């Protein structure tokens, strides 16, 4: 089971997916998924389109029915429970606000169906309007609001019934870049203030890294990696995760040997060091190492240790950093690497002949 060490044990999971599969025609959208979401977390499903993240979300919401497996919500098997009888609410990608109802009536919709008294509904609606800073918009119709305001109405409506789990289906996808950054912060803040469990679907790795307590990277209906943003970024478990989250250098070579947890691999005739993730590399085994561009360290003079010579093939000044293309080998021509340098450091290295180095644990060796 994919629980994180040190986090709430499985019994306290708000929701648990057990060997869930979902097929659409010939495609297996979700393939034997096993996952549990601890209470109060902001969990993101991240992956390219068609990876099964939205289907998983719709399975949680009850809009799709699992072909196999079980979904357990707060200890109750909800696999075959329709959405209207699940204690889960969703913020839809297009917000799905009812155009014929005012903002206040949209928010009250779920409360009315719950059969609550008029006074209770009014109180809760006012509370939510205030909570999401929509106070003055209660009597407006959805088409009189801006994109960001609509998104907040959708959020208020989904929170109204006090669900155990809030599902968010790429709710920022339609906002422009500047608004999106602001709404990301707002959403994070709302998560903190409600203390609810959020399950967020996105294909935007930066968004997932910014907002999540935990990211579940999916590909072809399966979980590639499940961990904190830092774990994912610094210690990707697969080539897919390394390439999907952030920029990565892939260092492909054969294993020469392992000593004290550090594995040396032969990369275009040069010995480079890395740390194997989740497997024991055998000698002469072909492997791939993932190395973030900012982990590459350049020196003008040969430093002590395992640095190797290389040549700067091109420099691109990007303001906050300089992107440098490197070729390994004393005269270049070896393996290629991308490195991010602080502009000041890049300026100091005038010569194109450099020494390349990195800390062994920054190169994740993958099977």
């Amino acid at each position, binding site marked *: 089971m994919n629980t994180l060490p040190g986090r709430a044990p499985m019994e306290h999971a708000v929701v648990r997916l057990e060997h869930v599969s979902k097929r659409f025609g010939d495609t297996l959208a979700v393939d034997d998924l096993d996952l549990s979401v601890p209470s109060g977390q902001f969990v993101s499903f991240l992956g390219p389109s068609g990876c099964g993240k939205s289907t998983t979300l719709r399975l949680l919401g009850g809009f799709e029915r699992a072909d196999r497996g079980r979904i357990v919500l707060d200890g109750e098997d909800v696999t075959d429970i329709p959405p*209207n009888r699940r204690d889960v609410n969703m913020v839809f990608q297009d917000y799905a606000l009812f*155009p014929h109802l005012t903002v206040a009536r949209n928010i009250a919709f779920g409360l009315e*169906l719950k059969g609550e008294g008029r006074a209770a509904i009014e109180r809760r609606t006012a509370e939510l309007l205030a909570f999401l800073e929509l106070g003055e918009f209660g009597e407006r119709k959805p088409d009189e609001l801006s994109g960001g305001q609509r998104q907040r109405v959708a959020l208020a409506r989904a929170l109204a019934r006090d669900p155990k789990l809030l599902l968010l289906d790429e709710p920022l996808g339609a906002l422009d870049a500047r608004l999106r950054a602001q709404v990301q912060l707002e959403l994070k803040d709302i998560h903190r203030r409600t203390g609810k469990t959020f399950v967020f679907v996105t294909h935007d790795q930066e968004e997932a890294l910014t907002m999540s307590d935990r990211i579940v990277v999916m590909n072809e209906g399966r979980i590639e990696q499940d961990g904190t943003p830092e774990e994912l970024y610094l210690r990707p478990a697969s080539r897919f995760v390394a390439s999907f989250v952030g920029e990565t250098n892939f260092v492909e070579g054969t294993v020469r040997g392992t000593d004290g947890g550090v594995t040396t691999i032969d990369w275009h005739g040069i010995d480079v060091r890395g740390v194997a993730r989740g497997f024991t590399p055998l000698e002469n085994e072909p492997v791939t190492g993932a190395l973030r561009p900012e982990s590459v360290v350049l020196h003008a003079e040969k430093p002590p240790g395992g640095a190797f010579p290389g040549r700067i093939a091109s420099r691109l000044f990007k303001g906050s950093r300089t992107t440098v293309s490197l070729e390994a080998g004393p005269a270049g021509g070896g393996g290629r690497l991308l490195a991010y340098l602080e502009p000041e450091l890049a300026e100091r290295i005038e010569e194109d002949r450099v020494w390349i180095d990195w800390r062994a644990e920054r190169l994740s060796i993958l099977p």
Partner: protein
Amino acid sequence: MTRWTRVTMSVIFWAFVVYLFVPLVLMILMGFKDSKFIGFPIRSWTLEWYVDVFRDTEVLGVFLYSAAIALASTAISLVIGTWCAVLIGPRRFVGRAALFALVCLPAVIPGIISAIALRIYARLLEIEPGMLAIVLGHAVHNVPFVALVVLARLATLPASHVEAARDLGADEIVAFFRVTVPYLRPALIGASVFCMLLSFDDFIRSFFLGGYQPTLPVLIFAKLRSGMSPEINAISTVVLVLTAVLGLWAERSSRRLARTKPSGAA
């Protein structure tokens, strides 16, 4: 477009407008002529024919009878038509085209054939010729129009709206009445006015399915047989004005309502 084609186009357009309206204008004019004979020249004008029409309790009764039939048949076709549209739905499935064709069929069957068929059928079901038979006949004929209009609107309803309603605690029926039906409102208004006008205007089905009590078109037809009179022009003018006003109002209000588009993320 050159200047000449533009001029030619507008001349053709205005010629068409004249061709369209001259008969109507003639009909209206003759209703104000102070003579039993229809035709030019008009020597003196009168409102006498209109006074007659409004005094004539038979005409008034027939008018109300036709209106009642229009309302009742529209109500039935609205329910059945919407139901058909929802059944066909915007989604594809095996046999959808066949079902669609079946629903549309009553709209394309020639009126005389459908009238005769309905007459025989009503006989078989032991429905007396009269109001009920006409209402049912009109309803059958109007269902396709409702279904088509509702289907077009239904296709623009994002699936997420119904899902959102389900998510917020509505079962399928509640979601339909609280989200789908309000969304369909402009289509329903437009369709019902169109159905009322179709029913009010229908001669052939009303003629075949009616009893002793005539509908308005049937009455006008009966009056014509005893000779053309300016009274008929007066009745026709009143009907023309009423239906035009109703039609234009419906057009305008359903167009305004149709602007209540799903306000998604934008």
